[in-house]
């Protein structure tokens, strides 16, 4: 798995993808930090995180689109699938590589916390709560994007698919209010990423929400493994 992680990280930064992801992430987070914290002379960074939520949904498909699609298209999956490693190691290796790049991007928010600390005492619980929320949300979206990437050799389809799912998950929150049926309302509220995310953003570590996001990761990692397995049997 370590070999896969190293290779994937190398691939992100030997192509523009890694740099574009980080640059866009830093530009937008910097803008929101400037507009919501520095300009407003506030120590509350949670608004930065709220805005980053949307940016993350747009950016994560860039990270995940190539994970499997590129290997399928260039037939390098033959090297991976004939190597003496399990499919789970392969999938986890790719997943953690994308997560590491994502963490590299979002770790800028800790720097913002430090910047705030220079002027006043920030609410670190709130910052870490938001950080954990964004990380869990990002991991969930990465697992979904990776799963979509494993189903196609076309990176554009993988990116658009991941973006569509992310957008749908964003809209689900609004959709839950559009139904009168309690069952449907409960269902859409239950799968709402936004609702789960909201608890963290007020600095509360919601164990159930953490389990929800980790479960989404586990399910889509499992599905990616099964997709790879299915390709062998196709």
């Amino acid at each position, binding site marked *: 798995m370590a*070999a896969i992680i190293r*290779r994937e990280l190398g691939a992100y930064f030997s*192509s523009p993808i890694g740099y574009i992801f980080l640059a866009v992430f830093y530009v937008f987070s910097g803008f929101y930090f400037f507009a919501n914290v520095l300009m407003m002379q506030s120590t509350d960074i949670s608004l930065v995180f709220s805005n980053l939520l949307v940016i993350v949904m747009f950016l994560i498909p860039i990270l995940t689109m190539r994970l499997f699609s590129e290997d399928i298209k260039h037939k*390098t999956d033959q*090297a991976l699938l*004939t190597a*003496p490693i399990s499919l789970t190691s392969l999938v986890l290796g790719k997943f953690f590589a994308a997560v590491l790049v994502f963490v590299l991007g979002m770790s800028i928010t800790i720097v913002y916390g430090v910047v705030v600390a220079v002027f006043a005492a920030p609410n670190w619980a709130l910052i870490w709560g938001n950080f954990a929320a964004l990380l869990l949300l990002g991991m969930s979206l990465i697992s979904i994007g990776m799963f979509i990437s494993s189903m196609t050799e076309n990176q554009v389809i993988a990116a658009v698919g991941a973006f569509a799912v992310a957008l749908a998950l964003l809209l689900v929150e609004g959709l839950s209010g559009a139904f009168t049926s309690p069952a449907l309302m409960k269902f859409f509220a239950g799968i709402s990423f936004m609702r789960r995310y909201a608890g963290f953003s007020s600095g509360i570590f919601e164990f159930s929400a953490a389990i929800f996001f980790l479960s989404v990761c586990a399910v889509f990692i499992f599905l990616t493994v099964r997709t790879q397995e299915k*390709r062998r*049997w*196709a």
Partner: protein
Amino acid sequence: MIEVKGLTKRYGAKAAVDNISFTVKEGEILGFLGPNGAGKSTTMNIITGYSSSTEGEVTVGGTEIFENPIAVKKMIGYLPEHPPLYLEMTVKEYLSFMYDLKKVKVSGVSKQKHIEEICGHVRIDDVYGRLTKNLSKGYRQRVGLAQALLGNPGVLVLDEPTVGLDPKQIIEIRNLIKGLGKKHTIILSSHILPEVQATCERVVVINNGKIIADDTPDNLSRAMSTDHKLTIRVDGPEDDVQKLLLKIPGMLRVDKLGVREESAYDFSMEAEPGADIRREAFKRLAERSWAILGLKSSELSLEDIFLQLTDESNKKSYIQSTEDPGADGEAADEAEQ
């Protein structure tokens, strides 16, 4: 070393590989021959664990691949038809990654040294620091071969290793494979016949997913050659010589092959099976003082054999003539299907 038993791979209703069985002994170089789409790559993909079979089993070194795929994959070095290279990596980075991916451990030899040894062996030292995307086709093929050799696996599976190379590179890769055959069991697929003839000790011919021949190149040639087909060069008038030859008892046909040297013509003759027309041809031509400048039996090259075998009408006749249906009716059954 490798045992393939009743292997079948179906894509929907179409059987890409249809109930094939063969074995490869340790240290043997087996040529897997067949036209494009015959099922060669599918078989190789199953042997290497890249894809699964619908039925049948593959055992490598006594271990069944579907029961313990990781153990089997450790024993195999695979060079697919398109070398699986990461184009953004240098040769050094790529081989280092493959070394780690394969979890290679060579006792007493460091990673660096092992990779350098293999690079020297396949002669890619001079491109060691270059990006693989900037390499020529020949070098890419060699890098692919180098990754297959990492960890000195007992079995090498090489899918069309010389495809797209120039003649010089082809000869180099062939010699390399021959050299590797001393230490490795090799399965080599190709639709380029001289390649198989030059490198392999045994040939399995596959067509439409079925094995239609399994023998040494020499035995195949012998079994399919016919002593009743001859080529003759005669110093005499072309039309008269043809007429004379056609009068020989048992002669079925005489075809003109044209003039090859001054006033001498070549003819191909086909007589009834079992009929030896050489003496009679000599006698009759001598009576007319038309000198025989050459006489040889029409030996079949592997190319001819291949074309004959992959031709449906000839397939049955070969299998039926070379297999003993009483001892092993499998091949005959296959031909009947």
